[in-house]
């Protein structure tokens, strides 16, 4: 008898759970894949969006752009892909996994950041000096910021000299963590990750002439193509409020994309 009641209770719970999950149609929930440099900025954009659209649910997954691309190509359930460059969204289009065309939304910047060394006035070429210790960069193989860091170090003529002191973060977020924890004395990181960071440190810009511009694009995936929320969120990021938040994190937007 007791057992029967338990089962009935369980069944009722199951039905309640199923109906509650059915109550939110697919269009009111999206999962966004975003490059790690967007972490703080995107969290803020999502919070602002949620404030304006309380019924919608936007989840964000962060990682290196290369990794996210691989995941989407293998069928990961993401509706929008915010990359740290424009090549990866373009690849998604070429492989037939996109539901639209890539749209530039931000321009990223590379800075040299340190928790222990005063970086003001430091040039990229100075990193050849051993006093800068270990230098963290993102993995050039699959992180756009890592690729730019390599370009900048090569352009400054110090790539070979710093080679033995380089450590590679899985994505730009982990790279910043290597530097912020002090394990690497200097990190070549995204400005967006350190601009409002609570961790104390100093930074110097890496001149944009030393690397290919980090023109960041997003693309709606094939899965998100028919999703109204995905489209609405994408236009929100490009709209006034989205832009204001992004620019507070140092993403000055490409002029051609101005409204």
């Amino acid at each position, binding site marked *: 008898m007791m057992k029967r009641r338990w089962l009935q209770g369980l069944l009722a719970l199951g039905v309640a759970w199923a109906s509650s999950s059915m109550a939110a149609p697919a269009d009111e929930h999206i999962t966004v894949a975003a490059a790690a440099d967007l972490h703080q900025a995107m969290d803020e954009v999502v919070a602002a969006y949620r404030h304006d659209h309380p019924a919608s649910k936007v989840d964000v997954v962060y990682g*290196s752009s*290369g*990794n996210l*691309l*691989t995941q989407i*190509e293998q069928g990961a359930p993401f509706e929008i892909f915010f990359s740290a460059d424009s090549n990866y969204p373009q690849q998604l289009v070429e492989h037939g996994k996109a539901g639209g065309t890539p749209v530039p939304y931000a321009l990223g910047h590379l800075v040299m950041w340190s928790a*222990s060394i005063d970086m003001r006035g430091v040039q990229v070429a100075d990193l050849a000096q051993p006093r800068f210790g*270990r230098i*963290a960069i993102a*993995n050039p*193989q*699959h992180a756009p910021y890592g690729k730019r860091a390599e370009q900048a170090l090569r352009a400054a003529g110090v790539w070979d000299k710093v080679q033995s002191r*380089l*450590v*590679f*973060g*899985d994505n730009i977020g982990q790279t910043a963590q*290597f530097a912020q*924890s*002090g*394990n*690497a004395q200097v990190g070549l990181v995204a400005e967006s990750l350190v601009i409002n960071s609570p961790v104390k440190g100093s930074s110097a810009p890496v001149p944009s002439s030393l690397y290919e511009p980090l023109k960041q694009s997003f693309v709606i995936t094939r899965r998100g193509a028919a999703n109204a929320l995905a489209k609405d969120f994408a236009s929100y990021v490009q709209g006034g409020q989205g832009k204001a938040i992004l620019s507070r994190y140092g993403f000055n937007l490409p002029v051609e994309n101005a409204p």
Partner: protein
Amino acid sequence: MALLTEPDMEALGLTLRLASTVTVLLLLLGMPLAWWLAHTRSRWRRPLAAVVALPLVLPPTVLGFYLLMLLGPNGVVGRTMAALGLAALPFTFKGLVVASMIYSLPFVVQPLHNAFESVGRRPLEVAACLRAGPLDRFFSVALPLAWPGVLTAAVLGFAHTVGEFGVVLMIGGNIPGQTRVLSMRIYDHVQAGEYHQANVLSLCLLVVSFAALLAMSLLRTRRQAHD
């Protein structure tokens, strides 16, 4: 296309070097520890056994995170080492050895513990009656009897270190020739969409792990035949 590129070979070599270093060190450290666990009546026995088993249940990221914090320049261990004039451990081969030893500790100590326990007290008491000293008793009686357990411990410790990923991701820094081990290299290949290389390297890991487990199982059967 070459089956394994030079960086792949480097990662493979580094992984084997790491795993053998860790296995040897863990056997040296694990034997007295397991011996003590098997024979002591101290009330610290259970807490210590639990600590030894911790890496079995802890996510590697937790281990990696704590190691990064502890060993870093702001951590207790890191500061002490700096004060002693020693180089910091994160992003070095030595650091990987230390981290892997913690990670693989239970895989070595538990089989040793079981083996020493199954030897029991009797053979040792007999040896003592024949006036064998404590060291003699260990090396001429206990160790030969526990030998299959020692081999199991070595195989498991080795195989586990070869496959380690989470800790390496957290404190390795992915440096070629120093901390870029096989599992990291596979991860990079997959992320870069280089599935062919990822496939070849993964197959290497699979074969090593399978061979290790097969060898262990064969050893066990032979031992049972002896009994």
